[in-house]
């Protein structure tokens, strides 16, 4: 059981440094400090930037000091003071997140930069609470040391896995992180030039089959709906004026293509 106490300090330090890093990354990427303010939205405009800087500096300082006092260096009063400060930090975070949820339920916590745009829910508040408890538990824990026996090491690993699982459950950011790791752009969002669609269409067997009924080089209409781009050519079929409609799936190579030949006036199928 005591092993759980020993593990809290590095875990808290990693989360604090990760939070600071996430915010800094967002600021650097957007070249603006105002894009993801999170709880600073509660404050007047002129105070938001300094409060955000102060929050980031606090996270960075606490994270570094937790790491600095995790071993024998600084053991005792300095280490306990830093851990108590961390507990106060997360306790204040619980209160602020609750307040933001009440007053601006549409705003994300911004805890880990752009990963934290989901509106603040009970999970985010609960996570701050769990981290506050973890900080309190870590007060008085001995300097971090290697496990004295394999069994103790196994126990630590189990305890760490359980705690990480709880934190992952309480973190909406995990889902967003997993998406980023395995991201491939959905076809609905993919930009594909019309010229490429037309060249794929003209290279297809469907085009060779129906091109005899097409009476113009240029489509009469082209539009897109999600993963499909529709191309309409004027045509003649069985002596009737027709619309030859091709639906081309938006994928770069060998897209599936569907065809309909319709009476121009009634839009009823000719074939």
């Amino acid at each position, binding site marked *: 059981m005591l092993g759980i106490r020993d593990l809290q300090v590095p875990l808290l330090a990693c989360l604090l440094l990760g939070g600071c890093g996430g915010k800094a990354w967002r600021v650097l990427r957007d070249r603006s400090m105002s894009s993801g303010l999170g709880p600073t939205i509660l404050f007047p405009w002129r105070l*938001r930037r300094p409060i955000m800087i102060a929050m980031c500096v606090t996270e960075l300082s606490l994270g570094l000091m937790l790491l600095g006092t995790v071993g024998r260096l600084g053991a005792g009063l300095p280490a306990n003071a830093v851990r108590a400060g961390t507990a106060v930090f997360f306790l204040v975070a619980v209160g602020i997140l609750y307040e933001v949820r009440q007053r601006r339920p549409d705003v994300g916590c911004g805890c880990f930069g752009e990963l934290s745009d989901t509106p603040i829910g009970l999970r985010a508040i609960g996570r701050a609470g769990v981290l506050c408890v973890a900080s309190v538990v870590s007060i008085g824990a001995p300097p971090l040391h290697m496990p004295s026996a394999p069994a103790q090491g196994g126990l630590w690993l189990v305890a760490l896995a359980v705690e990480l699982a709880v934190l992952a459950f309480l973190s909406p950011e995990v889902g967003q992180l997993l*998406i980023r790791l395995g991201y491939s752009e959905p076809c*609905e969002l993919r930009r594909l*030039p019309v010229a490429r669609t037309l060249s794929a269409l003209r290279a297809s067997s469907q085009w060779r089959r129906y091109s005899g009924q097409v009476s113009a080089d240029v489509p009469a*209409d082209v539009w897109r709906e999600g993963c499909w781009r529709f191309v309409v050519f004027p045509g003649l079929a069985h002596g009737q004026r027709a619309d030859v409609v091709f639906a081309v799936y938006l994928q770069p190579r060998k897209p599936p293509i569907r065809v309909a030949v319709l009476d121009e006036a009634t839009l009823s199928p000719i074939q």
Partner: protein
Amino acid sequence: MQSHERQVRHSTDFPGWCDDVTDSTGPARFARRALLKAAVLGSPGDQAAPPKDALLAKASGTLVYTVIGKILDISPHILVLDTDEGEQRFPLAASARAWRGGPVAPAALRQGDHAIVRRSQPGMPVVDRLWAEAGRVTGTIIERDGPATLLVDEGPAKGRRIVMIGAGAAGRIQVRFPRLEPGYLIDVIGLRHDGFLQALIPATAQPPYRAGRPPTPPLVNGHVPDPLGGTAVWHEPGEEPTGLLGIAYPALDPETSCEQAATTPVTCDGDLHAVDPHATGPGCVRLPYLSVGSMLRLRNDCSGRARMLPVTGCGATARLFCDRCVSCGTSQKGRIADLTMAAFVELGGNLEDGCFNATMMLGG
């Protein structure tokens, strides 16, 4: 403040199939698209192509709850409107509520006011909600003249509007919009006047970022969810017919929606602050690309009403706002649809609220 004429972008370089909604042949071409799509892909849940008449009826913009017109006469019990169908009389419910810059008694509305009213039951004559001279401006502030006059760019499709903030509303608006400066976003509701909007209510809270730098939206895993939850807002008709039921969609296909229009030359200081929403990335919500004429099923999650609505225009300015609607709980995402005023009221939205939580289903 300098004079600014409405800016509509045209280019002779656009191919004939470009989604230029000002094209006189456009409406018929766009209306055919749903039919052609159904013919080539089949309608959802049915392999056979649906009959043309059924689809046209489904897509037709018939107002069931909503009536729009000019007030000819109003008393505590009867409203007389000059509508497209001629003079019409409507009994007012005892509980009828009216809005004209704020809540007022129905009898306080004025003759000549442009009104949009909602029936309590579909097709029944009794009216229970009335709005008069309601207007809204949503866009980027590009010029400020004194403390109370703003020039706002509503995006390439809508042009520019002048917003005047009266002394009585200044405090209320500045609480939600602390930066009434060029380059920042504004979204206000108020009373329409000739040539300007008198801003009275903030429609949302001001995004903290500059208009040209909206945050990057979260990535989507697999396909874009369908149905998709988010926020629906409304816009003034502008050059559209006043009774049009439709959606200005924030993510028209960039290849065919004419967003490659020639850049407007800088003619005044304000142009330096104008933001083309198409140039700011995907916006606050990743939405599937659609085109004018695409059909969507939109449900008001607060009232439960749903309608099939066509995409009738470009709502790219909605991309710039990452706000959530909190009219009945917090909406799942930001702005997914910018409805015409008639569609917003038809679906049970209250214009003064500015938004409702919506669920959108692609293709119905």
